[in-house]
């Protein structure tokens, strides 16, 4: 690859992650519908996971499972396992947050009859 293409390949995945983060964040602010806000939160969380995994990837490396019989390759031949473990935790926290958020949304709908933020705020008066 030429110099410019190599530089772009080196920083591209981070930029995509940042772009997704911005999309999720703006969706959480701009959408009035609570469900769309929740979807924006989901996208924001997955963008952070993408960011960490981009930092752990290695060219010409395989997945971090060493052969059980021995004869393992040097560590540079395996992807970095530490961010993978952290991001596993992050995904489980993602689904936990989603469960509680959906329960809150269902309660709000039962009480105020809408998923729209301004309608709910209006009916709260």
């Amino acid at each position, binding site marked *: 690859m030429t110099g410019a293409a190599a530089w772009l390949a080196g920083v591209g995945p981070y930029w995509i992650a940042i772009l997704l983060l911005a999309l999720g964040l*703006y969706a959480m602010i701009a959408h*009035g519908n609570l469900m769309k806000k929740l979807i924006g939160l989901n996208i924001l969380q997955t963008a952070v996971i993408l960011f960490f995994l981009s930092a752990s990837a290695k060219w010409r490396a395989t997945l*971090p499972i060493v052969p059980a019989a021995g004869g393992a390759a040097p560590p540079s031949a395996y992807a970095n*396992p530490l961010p993978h473990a952290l*991001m596993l935790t992050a995904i489980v926290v993602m689904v936990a947050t989603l469960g509680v958020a959906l329960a809150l949304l269902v309660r709000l709908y*039962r009480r105020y009859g809408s998923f729209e933020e301004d309608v709910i705020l209006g009916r709260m008066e």
Partner: protein
Amino acid sequence: MSGILILALLGLTLALAVATLLARDLLGAVLVLAGYSLVLSLLWAAMGAVDVAFTEAVVGAGVSTVLFLAALLRTSATRTAPRPRVRWGAAAAVAAATAALGWASLDLPAFGDAGSAPATHVSPRYLAAGLSETGAPNIVTAVLADYRSYDTLIETVVIFTAGVGCWLLLWREPR
């Protein structure tokens, strides 16, 4: 790792994220989110993060979608969200934050660099000594369950708390 595959999947991810957020029908948005999660899990498998890809596939494209649909289909009378107004102040703030992050990301190690700081700090020790110290060839499981066991303990408590939270929030729900 195949660069073309990762590039294609990154593009698809971005397109699906935009599609999810632009969709005005909530049911359609949730289903596109399931597709987004699936493409994301393929992307992570392409980057070599197979455990994370496995979890994202079962959680994002599986359980998470069902939970969304369960909440949506029993509550929403009008399933279409009205077109959101463009909030210029928020858009400007998010754009400024994005530009700052993008500028800061220039200091990050290049994608795929095997000599970067995260790859040469403590991870080589886990990779070199994981099998002989813990008996598990899957180093991610060894890190998760042995070396970083505190995090996993607290995470288990978090998912339990979420279950209890849902149980309490929807306590007096009609059958």
